[in-house]
């Protein structure tokens, strides 16, 4: 009976739950879903990680290729992030070119990478104006159950911190490059941005780490990305307005979340490195 009620009156179904301040999957309003991170699983990629936020699963794979730096920025390499919401992860998406939602999230992730300066493009330059690394960062969403940006940024951090590029000695005169696969050098990661997503329900209740149903029924979404104690992105695309107190309480929650996620990444990367 409950399933029928949920499909016929989704909003009422949710309001009944929220009136007893509990969510349908049994969580409190500010409780996060179990978070898992697995690093270095795909060895055809130079850096890879799989992150699971509750049921939302995202695989991030980084492949590096040579390229010629742009004329106006001769000493900078490239980072090319792309999020693929394939029809595999949810019935909402159809095969073919990426949907609007995929493009919006891709741009959001690209902005976060740029704002957080987690990778300095100058480190990707092998020889100014002649040769540089181009990191293709491809996110593939395997299960779309809300808060995809958080899962992507977590996977990105896992992949970046285990990324190792082969050493290259480049001879500009003859323009030939010799790659030595055994000696691999890691790319310095300057900061670890942590993203948290909130949804605003009926203009007053703020839920953390929403599932896809909550994202569809909510009246506003807020994504905050913290870097250390600085904020590197605060993205609220419209939706019901937010008072200042709510905003600052959200930022507090982000700070606690950031510390726990940072420890998670540290331990996982440490196990991977000494394995």
């Amino acid at each position: 009976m409950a399933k029928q009620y949920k499909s016929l009156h989704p909003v009422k179904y949710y309001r009944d739950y929220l009136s007893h301040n509990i969510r349908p999957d049994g969580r409190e309003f500010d409780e996060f879903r179990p978070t898992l991170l697995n690093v270095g699983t795909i060895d055809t990629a130079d850096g890879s990680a799989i992150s699971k936020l509750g049921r939302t699963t995202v695989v991030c794979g980084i492949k590096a290729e040579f390229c010629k730096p742009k004329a106006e920025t001769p000493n900078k390499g490239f980072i090319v992030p792309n999020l693929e919401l394939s029809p595999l992860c949810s019935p909402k998406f159809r095969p073919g070119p990426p949907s609007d939602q995929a493009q919006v999230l891709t741009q959001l992730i690209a902005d976060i990478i740029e704002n957080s300066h987690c990778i300095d493009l100058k480190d990707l330059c092998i020889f100014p104006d002649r040769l540089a690394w181009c990191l293709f960062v491809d996110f593939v969403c395997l299960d779309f159950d809300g808060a995809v940006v958080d899962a992507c940024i977590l996977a990105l951090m896992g992949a970046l911190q285990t990324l190792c590029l082969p050493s290259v000695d480049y001879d500009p005169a003859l323009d030939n490059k010799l790659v030595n696969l055994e000696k691999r050098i890691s790319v310095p990661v300057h900061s670890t941005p942590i993203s948290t997503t909130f949804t605003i329900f009926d203009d007053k209740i703020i839920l953390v780490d929403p599932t896809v149903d909550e994202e569809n029924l909510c009246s506003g979404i807020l994504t905050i990305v913290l870097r250390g104690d600085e904020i590197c992105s605060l993205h609220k695309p419209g939706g019901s307005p937010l008072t200042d107190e709510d905003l600052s309480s959200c930022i507090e929650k982000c700070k606690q979340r950031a510390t726990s996620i940072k420890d998670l990444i540290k331990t996982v990367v440490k196990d991977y490195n000494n394995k």
Partner: protein
Amino acid sequence: MESPQFSCKLGVLSRPDASVIFCEGETVVMAGIYGPIEVKMQKMLIDKASVECNYRPKRGLPGVEDKLYESLIRNICDTALVTSLYPRSAILIALQEMHNSGQLISCAINAACLVCLESGIDMKFMFGAVTCFLTNQEELRLMPPISDSAVKASFVFVLDNVKERILASHTEGSFSMEQYEEAQDLSRKQIKNVFAFFKKTLNSGKEM
């Protein structure tokens, strides 16, 4: 604190139900709105109008970045407009970037608000946008600094005119919590003359 100059011209285009060309400082955006129109079957919502927005950049085909602007403006208008009065219909807002010299997003949002006001579709509240720039010398300004590299961070605040709560916010670059609050207060002051400008244009008819 020197703030950008506003000027706008209403009723520029004949085909859309309402249209405006709006400039904030040197940034110029043209906006048109098609009031409740017929909607395609897949997009139809039973109890309210479905708001759509398409944003065209100055040069080339719309890329991934313009899709972000589109979703930002679509959500803002969706909350502001009383869509439940026009069920099973669609409201289309079309924006064309004419020139960008820093405050592109806030100029586009202000143009969208003006065109919604002009179109006569009921609105819960009026919304306005302000862009603040944080220079490398940690100094908050409303006008974009001359060289692009001097900007450490930029904030766009969209506030409603009833209780001036944050409707939307989009930031670039990294900043601390205090700087965010400072920018917020600055934008609350600046939003007043944005709304004043809106009222003046609507009362005085076509030109400002």
